[in-house]
């Protein structure tokens, strides 16, 4: 039953149109992010193009930010908000380290990110995040978020302007059972690290073909037991 106050019986309420604001605090800088979790690795990738409207601002801007030893955040959306969000998380992580004498685990950071986003529920960070890393057991984990902090752990995910081009391809290659199906399946994929990186490169190359906001180069970060490694692959610049 919806709580609607009944309008006055003699008048009909005309629908009021909200005037178009002259200025928006947000802008979409475009771009796509992808992450794939493996048995003992995690691959996080994002293109390096930053756009506004139909123009390109920067061809080599990194959307990836390493917050802890084992967590890497990739975000597309409004980069100013994203930078502020990254700095916020860094500061919170520093405090955590002072208090607990150790780094935050990836699941802990995932929760912190969710809370940080919801904190600004009524003036959100225009950020579409994918958090990737290794959990406490050393297994790959991927968490994907909406703008206000709703999140879920999964085996793979993508966000951003190329998400709708990439996600079906990942589903096709990595299909994991729905988290609603019991018994709960492991949320990691059976690919090897090399195959996962190759898949990421293919998906970005494909997305760059049709999504105008994705291109220039893709930055790929791989976390495994040995540490963190970076790769950069060129994409079409048109």
């Amino acid at each position, binding site marked *: 039953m919806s709580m609607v106050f009944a309008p006055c019986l003699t008048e009909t309420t005309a629908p009021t149109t909200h005037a178009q604001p002259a200025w928006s605090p947000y802008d979409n800088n475009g771009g796509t992010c992808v992450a794939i979790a493996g048995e003992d690795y995690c691959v996080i990738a994002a293109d390096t193009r930053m756009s506004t409207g139909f123009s390109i601002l920067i061809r080599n801007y990194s959307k990836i930010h390493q917050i802890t030893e084992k967590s890497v955040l990739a975000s597309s959306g409004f980069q100013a908000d994203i930078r502020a969000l990254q700095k*916020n998380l*860094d*500061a919170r992580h*520093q*405090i955590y380290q*002072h208090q607990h004498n150790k780094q935050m685990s990836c699941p802990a950071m995932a929760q912190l990110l969710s809370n940080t986003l919801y904190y600004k529920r009524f003036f959100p960070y225009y950020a579409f995040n994918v958090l990737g890393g290794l959990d406490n057991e050393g297994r790959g984990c991927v968490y994907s978020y909406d703008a206000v902090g709703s999140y879920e752990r999964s085996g793979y995910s993508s966000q951003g302007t190329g998400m709708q081009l990439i996600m079906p391809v990942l589903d096709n290659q990595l299909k994991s059972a729905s988290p609603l199906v019991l018994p709960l399946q492991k949320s990691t994929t059976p690919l090897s690290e090399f195959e996962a990186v190759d898949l990421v490169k293919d998906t970005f190359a494909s997305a760059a073909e049709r999504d105008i906001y994705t291109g220039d180069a893709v930055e790929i970060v791989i976390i495994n037991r040995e540490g963190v490694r970076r790769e950069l692959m060129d994409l079409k610049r048109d």
Partner: protein
Amino acid sequence: MFRNQYDTDVTTWSPAGRLHQVEYAMEAVKQGSAAIGLRSKTYVVLATVNKASSELSAHQKKLFKIDNHIGIAMAGLTADGRVLSRYMRSECINHHFVFESPLPVGRLVVQVADKAQVCTQRSWKRPYGVGLLVAGLDEAGPHLYYNCPSGNYAEYHAFAIGSRSQAAKTYLERKFETFMECTKEELIRHALFAVKESLQEEELSSGNCGVAVVGIDEPFVVLDPKTLQAYIEALDSGKDEMQTIEETGADDRQSSQVPQEGTGSRGISVGASEDTPTDMET
């Protein structure tokens, strides 16, 4: 120190122009177990005497990391020190958030000093009962400061505070001119010798002392008991063992002839006598 009729409030001056409550706060620092700091051209080392209140308990933590480039050692009411270190950490994080660069040590020290001064001029507060040795690095190089409960601070080549610190100070005064050219290992050696002086009867071990180091390209770190024990054992066996302890430390020796830094003050406080309020009046 005898009781006066002007020492009830911190906001009451004595006819001699002294604030006795503040001096009593500095007395609390002198009662705490010793803390020592010393620096070279590239490193600052802090060392503390860790006294456990009973055999059953662990000792109080007196060395705190404030940021990658700053750390402190405290003597006195360690609870007050913990609160101050939380404030200092918060200031460093906020500065880094806004300016994306490390907070210069000198600035942080002034902020702490101003915070301490507030407590000497409010009738509803009491002065902090802790002295802080602040070790840090900035663009100008390594620094060692002492923050006093009175709200005063000064920079030092080397300093010692707390109970039986005079013995350590005597050692430091003898040796401080050589500190600038010291390697990291030599500096830690000097720190441990100074701690030994403060311990007097007791034997030095990783159980009753703590050491922390910060250097150019080396973030502030409190040495773990194993590394510390190795340094302590090396004290007796002489210099040769030292080179093998730290893999990275061996190449710190600077062979270039750089003139000694021309700082105004000698920096070593010559055993401040307990009756004259030298700390407050400089």
